[in-house]
């Protein structure tokens, strides 16, 4: 048993490391296919340049080296857990990611938490009232949120709640002008969080509602539910203890997929609400050909995906004891 465990973990970890490394190598060459480089973007933005200035930039960025040399350099950095330096920002990549991580985590936890809780609850309600008016109303609403473009929902929320009603701020993460500290600061951030988290959450919510409803209905037709009904259990208890627990599996799968995309952030929502998250950082890095930074974000992102996948597998065994870890 114990040896089997060790073998499982060793194999799994090696497998994960290989996947991450493979992704890094593919990313490196893929990104270098993009026309233009960081020096060109900087010179383009400056509105004017001379060949001497651009040569100085390329030397500074290490872009004057041949691609294979750059690649070996990159690999050597990776193996020592060094994500490199963003010359555009003048800061190490790790530090840049660290600066943006809290904002991204806050937005993601808030929106996914809201989506999972509210979405699952709505799904359960819809499934228990399947075919009735309430079910139709919830399903229609979910479909509407799912189909509406995220940026449109965001802008409408801004126009209604910020510009029109003046309840919430237009964007950003804090009111720097006010210089809040302590509890007032936390409240200020919370006020800024409402609209972006709701915008992003509404899209996810729709997914969870539909997923939960379908899973609940499917489980309800299973034999053990008929047994439970025959035993004379109350419908409420059956729904929560027997149906819900089994219906959670697809929801956990979906959750895994979404948590995996945390580091990628939510480019659209972050852009509309000027939220200082990783998604915008990655998006801008792409246009600015800041490849060190982009590679760093993508690498962290792939690491998170791999780790979350493992966590989801483990969670399956907890939720459903019939599932075992293979290998």
């Amino acid at each position, binding site marked *: 048993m114990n040896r089997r465990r060790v073998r499982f973990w060793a194999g799994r970890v090696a497998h994960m490391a290989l996947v991450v490394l493979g992704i890094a190598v593919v990313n490196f060459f893929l990104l270098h296919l993009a026309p233009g480089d960081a020096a*060109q*973007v*900087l010179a383009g933005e*400056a509105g004017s340049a*001379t*060949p001497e200035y651009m040569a100085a930039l390329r030397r500074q960025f290490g872009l004057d080296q041949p691609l294979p040399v750059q690649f070996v350099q990159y690999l050597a950095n990776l193996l020592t857990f060094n994500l490199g330096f963003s010359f555009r920002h003048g800061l190490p990549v790790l530090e840049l990611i660290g600066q943006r991580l809290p904002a991204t985590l806050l937005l993601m936890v808030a929106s996914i938490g809201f989506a999972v809780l509210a979405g699952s609850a709505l799904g359960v309600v819809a499934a228990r009232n399947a075919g009735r008016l309430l079910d139709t109303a919830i399903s229609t609403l979910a479909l509407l949120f799912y189909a509406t473009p995220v940026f449109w929902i965001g*802008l409408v929320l801004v126009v209604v709640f910020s510009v029109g009603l003046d309840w919430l701020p*237009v964007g950003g993460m804090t009111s720097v002008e006010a210089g809040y500290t302590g509890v007032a600061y936390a409240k200020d951030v919370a006020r800024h969080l409402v609209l972006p988290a709701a915008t992003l959450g509404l899209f996810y919510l729709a997914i969870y509602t539909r997923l939960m409803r379908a899973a609940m209905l499917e489980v309800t037709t299973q034999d053990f539910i008929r047994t439970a009904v025959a035993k004379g259990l109350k419908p409420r208890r059956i729904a929560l203890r027997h149906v819900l627990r089994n219906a959670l599996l697809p929801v956990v799968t979906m959750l895994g997929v979404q948590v995996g995309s945390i580091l990628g952030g939510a480019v659209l929502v972050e852009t509309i609400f000027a939220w200082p998250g990783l998604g915008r950082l990655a998006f801008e890095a792409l246009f600015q050909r800041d490849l060190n930074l982009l590679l760093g974000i993508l690498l962290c992102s792939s690491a998170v995906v791999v780790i979350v996948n493992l966590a989801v597998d483990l969670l399956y065994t907890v939720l459903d004891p019939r599932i075992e870890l293979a290998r």
Partner: protein
Amino acid sequence: MTSNASRSLLLRVASLAVGVTALFGGTAFAQAPQNGGTLTAIVQPEPVTLTSAINTAAPTGFISGNVFDGLVDYDLNLNPKPALAERWEVAPDGLSITFFLRRGVTWHDGHPFTSADVKWTLENVWKTIHPRNQATFGRVTQVETPDDHTVVLRLSEPSLAILSSVNSNGAQVLPKHLYAGTDILNNPHNLKPVGTGAFVFKEWSKGNHVILERNPNYWDKGKPHLDRIVFKVIPDAAARAAALEKGDVQYAVFSPVPLKDAERLAKLPNLKIETRGYEWLSPWLFFDLNVDNPYLKDVRVRRAIAHAIDRKAISNIVWYGFAKPAISPVPTTLGAFHDATVPQYEFDTKKAEALLDEAGYKRGPDGVRFALTHDFIPYGDDYKRTGEYLKQALKRVGIEVTIRSQDTAAFTKRVYGDRDFDISSAWFAAFSDPQVGVTRAYWSGWVGKNTPWTNGSGYRNPEVDALIAQAQGQARQEDRIATFKKIQQIVQTDLPSIPLAELKFFSVHAANLKDVVTHGDQIYGSLKDAWFDKTASN
């Protein structure tokens, strides 16, 4: 569902404005500036660095101009005004320029500002790594500092363009004691600048904001009036409009909202649209025609294209009136340098068709003479619409145009490096002297050098090259003006690129923010004169 909400807001703002006008309607003249208040402005895109000496991008200049001073400022007519230099003298032979520096000026860290700072920056930054200044200061052979407050530039040839580029953006003076002996491009002070300006750098939260605070020891006594400036990064144009409309943000520059939103915002009583402050930049929009293209190498085809384009329509319809038709590549804002007598190509499709027929490109059975591609400068919808206009206009005379889009890095490589295009669009800043901003579009030395915003058309004319070199070394301004007029006549005859419009960039600011534009280089200058009229804001 939003109309009610926004209407009630409008009503509120409107009634406020009516009240304010009733109270102060009669006393609109020359109010004394009031001190205090925090200005929230938009900076977009987020700057790369806060030091204009190593990066001349607009967002950097917008913030940096508040932290640093120039040797001079430029007034709305682009005349130099004293700043760090109290006065200056150009020797009669044009071979030396002397700046007399202001006394008692200190850097934000307390070090005195002296002639050594100017000398060091000129020799180590402006002449070497500055993106634009190497041509301007290239003729400086020696910098003398007879005392702490005098700088003498010795020149191999006269260089009058120098006096047009010594504001805080054109030639930013860096503190020698923090930069000497360091790797200048990687110096940590590029991100937390130490200047002499009206505002002191406080913090930069990446992706969020930059905060500057009032410099209590500023040499210009009584200024600045504002306590603080917060520059916020707001990437989405609709969100920028909302933030301005709501009053969360009181100042934004470089056409911060789409042109159609600008029309709407201009009607709001709490906001004002301002097109002054961009004079030093003097931007003009043009199409570059790749003269290596088999069709476009024929000057008759290039002239035909010019005749097929209605520049009035571009200014009034495509650019919503935020532009005026261009006559020559030297914009009218450059005053004496501008030549209004250059050959004109009036909008006339018949003439265009006749020229194309004459060049031997008859319409085929499908009505098409030949096909070209168009790559527009990827700076937003306005340039895309300009490209769509070109497609329509040329279709009328039998030229099929395919529009291609890409991001900035791909665009500059395609046009200035690979030269793999037919017609491209771009806007350049002419600056207050054509030598700085205009000649780069025509000098053959730039062709294919992969240097963005230079000679994109591939135009090579030894006569023009010689005239450009001649104008650089002329000591008398009248002679330079005559030379630049000759250049304009030639390039408008050969027409490697078609000037379309003099762009009017605009700023949006709160109606109670006063004196926000006092200089011709305001968007790259200091907000030391700006103040909030508090009687109006309550």
